[in-house]
């Protein structure tokens, strides 16, 4: 098991390295962002660029880039958007907003999603099941900006319950801040709820018809007992890993939702860095998103092995 995990992690790091390498080369092949000649930061930025080897061959530049990261954890300096600020520091300052909004959203939506899924599966082919399944299907199909619009229009504009966009500032744990985050949290939750409902329902309906459920009933368990002890336990094999995946994913945030509700998070920083264009910021962001994506994949895969002893990780088929 340990060997398998190590193997996966090493492979992931290799993949990450290759992706960052390719992105780095592609970005550095572009002419660096034009500086405003009247900008007072011009000299600083130019000096910094010189130090990062902008005039040297690409592979030397990549070497300097890696060396800076490994020795000083220095990801470079923002040269267009927030001139002169350290990219990593800038990035970490944007992280709390994203994490908090997403955390609230999944804490709210995972239980609801699973409960709805269980309900639908237990009442299979009744009107409850049909309603839940249809709604799930609708929400999964509709792009997130549509229900963000509906929430903003109905709750913020027509009813006036919430502010249109998230409050500025960094005191994330006040009531007014929470209230201003709610529309964004709701918009994020719809998709997650629908996803979990669908997975839970699909898994549970399959488990409920299996032979061991019949055996459990035969030996005298009530339907509730059999469902909780046997069916749910089996269905968690699929659900738990995706919960872990979601928790890792909270750091990446949603580009669209962050833009609509102007959440000062990493997603918005990313969009800005693309439009600016601010290449050091872009590379840092890319590396981060890639790492999150890969890490989520690994965690999901490995957690299967921990949760379900029947699945042997890394064994030869």
């Amino acid at each position, binding site marked *: 098991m340990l060997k398998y995990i190590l193997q996966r992690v090493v492979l992931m790091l290799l993949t990450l390295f290759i992706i960052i390498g390719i992105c780095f080369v592609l970005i550095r092949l572009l002419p660096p962002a034009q500086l405003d000649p009247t900008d007072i930061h011009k000299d600083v930025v130019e000096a910094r660029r010189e130090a990062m080897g902008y005039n040297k061959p690409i592979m030397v530049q990549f070497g300097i880039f890696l060396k800076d990261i490994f020795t000083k954890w220095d990801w470079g300096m923002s040269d267009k958007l927030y001139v002169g600020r350290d990219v990593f520091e800038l990035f970490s300052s944007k992280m709390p907003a994203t994490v908090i909004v997403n955390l609230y959203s999944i804490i709210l939506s995972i239980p609801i999603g699973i409960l709805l899924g269980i309900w639908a599966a237990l009442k299979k082919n009744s009107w409850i099941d049909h309603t839940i399944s249809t709604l799930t299907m609708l929400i999964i199909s*509709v792009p997130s*900006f*549509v229900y963000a*619009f509906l929430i903003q*229009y109905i709750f913020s504009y027509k009813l006036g319950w919430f502010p249109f966009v998230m409050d500025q500032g960094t005191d994330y744990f006040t009531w007014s801040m929470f209230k201003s985050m709610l529309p964004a949290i709701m918009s994020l939750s719809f998709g997650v709820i629908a996803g979990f409902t*669908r997975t839970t329902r*699909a898994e549970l*309906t399959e488990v409920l018809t299996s032979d061991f459920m019949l055996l459990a009933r035969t030996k005298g368990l009530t339907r509730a007992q059999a469902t909780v002890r046997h069916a749910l336990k089996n269905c968690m094999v699929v659900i738990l890993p995706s919960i872990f995946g979601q928790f890792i994913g909270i750091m990446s945030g949603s*580009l669209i939702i962050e833009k609509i509700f102007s959440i000062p998070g990493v997603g918005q920083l990313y969009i800005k860095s693309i439009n600016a264009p601010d290449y050091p910021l*872009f590379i840092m962001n890319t590396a981060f998103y890639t790492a999150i994506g890969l890490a989520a994949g690994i965690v999901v895969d490995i957690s299967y092995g921990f949760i379900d002893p029947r699945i042997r990780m890394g064994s030869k088929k």
Partner: protein
Amino acid sequence: MDTNIYEHIPKEKFAFKQLDANIHDQKLETKSRGYFADAMVRFKKNKSSVVAAWIILFLILFAIVSPLISVNPVRHMDSTYTQHPPFIRAIADKNLGIFDGATKHESQSEKQVAIWRAIGEETGLQPVLRIVDTTVQKEKYRGQWRDVVYHKIENNKYYERGVVYRVVSYDEYQRIQDFQNETGVQVIYPYVEPKDIMGIKDNPNIWYQVQDNKGTPLQDEDGNYIYLPAYSTDSSIEGPVPYNSIRIEGDPGNYIYSAAKSGAVHIRICYYNYYHYVNGHEPTYIFGTNSLGQCLFTGIGVGARFSLIFAVIVSAINLTIGAIYGAIQGYYGGLIDLILDRIAEVLGGVPFVVVTTLFQLHLAQKVGVLPSFLFAFVLTGWLGMAALTRKQFYRFKSLEFVLAARTLGASDWRLMFKHIFPNALGTIVTSCALVIPGVISSEVSLTYLGIINLQELFGTSIGTLASQGQTAMTAAPHAMLFPSIFISLLLISFNLFGNGLRDAFNPSTRGVED
């Protein structure tokens, strides 16, 4: 013993059953059904998918037809009629409450309503559609309490603009007159001098005698507002080009229609009719206009055309590449599989937004925005298909029929695509149906975020329209609503249709996954 009755049965008790009959298989009475015919039958049983299929057909027709029948080309942007609600003159005149360009105004005083009504009195295009609600408030005015009446009214936003000032050249002035003579539509209205209306200079809609400098009309003894024309008759300020066109009702013949202004004329024009003059047709916006003054009806059609065509092309390319890649992986296995799998993993690890951005930065200038967008979709889009095909190939490649074909000397290529692939086709087809909505969804999200801008190429796209609508959501909710409805309907129907297709082609998974 009982069993003994079945023993020693006499020979004559036996008779020949079918001595002369030909023994052969009975020909099947029922008509045989192929794989696809069978799938069609199952598909038709799924009512929601059939409905979804019809909706898709309708939306495709809409995309084809709407830019053709719309009077407003997609690049036509009117700088005045921006964020205007749906309006069709023929329906608005019937007063049904739809397509009348209605926009709400809260708490309008009696005076203000009288000023709105004046626009209708002059141009014949009455902006005040209906008074929705009336409230009476007590207000303190110069130390005394008095009742003030406030109305909540609905105005036709197209008529509301009323009359505007324009400075036009002599030629233009003449052309407008020619247009008036030809069509009988009154564009130019008589000139009003500020000195006649208490010095009001910035409101061209004041054409009547006023009692204060806010534009309140005169009142008769009963307190009703009356509109007495204040048009100028002073021919000394008139522009050098004579006015030889239709005159408004009640014109004794001495009203002047323009004022001289250093080499040009200053005129009052009814914007609604001026629009008619400029564009050759009256404003007709079935879905209204967005913040740029673009017609949403045309815009959605144009955007949908692009989305649909793009999705079909991307899906076709991805499926082909994925099938070939997966086939090679699955068929050869071993080291080749391992290497190809690593490549796929690296590609799969790059976030899609990053791919799109990099392609935009690098290729957009060389090959254009659209091809680079296409490449971005193709670069990682085929991975899912490849994984699926690979799995199917692993399943089938060790079966006897493959061995038999190989023994007969079939080449690798033939084995792959003549023997194994058709067997895997069922599973592959079923997953294809859900690829198209996926592509549409990502494309719309990217244009929404503004990472890709197709405005120069096609005029607009659904994502662009939605993001423009989002910014002006409170002023013009329709600008967000119509693109949202369209894209939601499209994606929902495609997903329903895809699910139905998958169930139909794959009876074993029916009911397991929804």
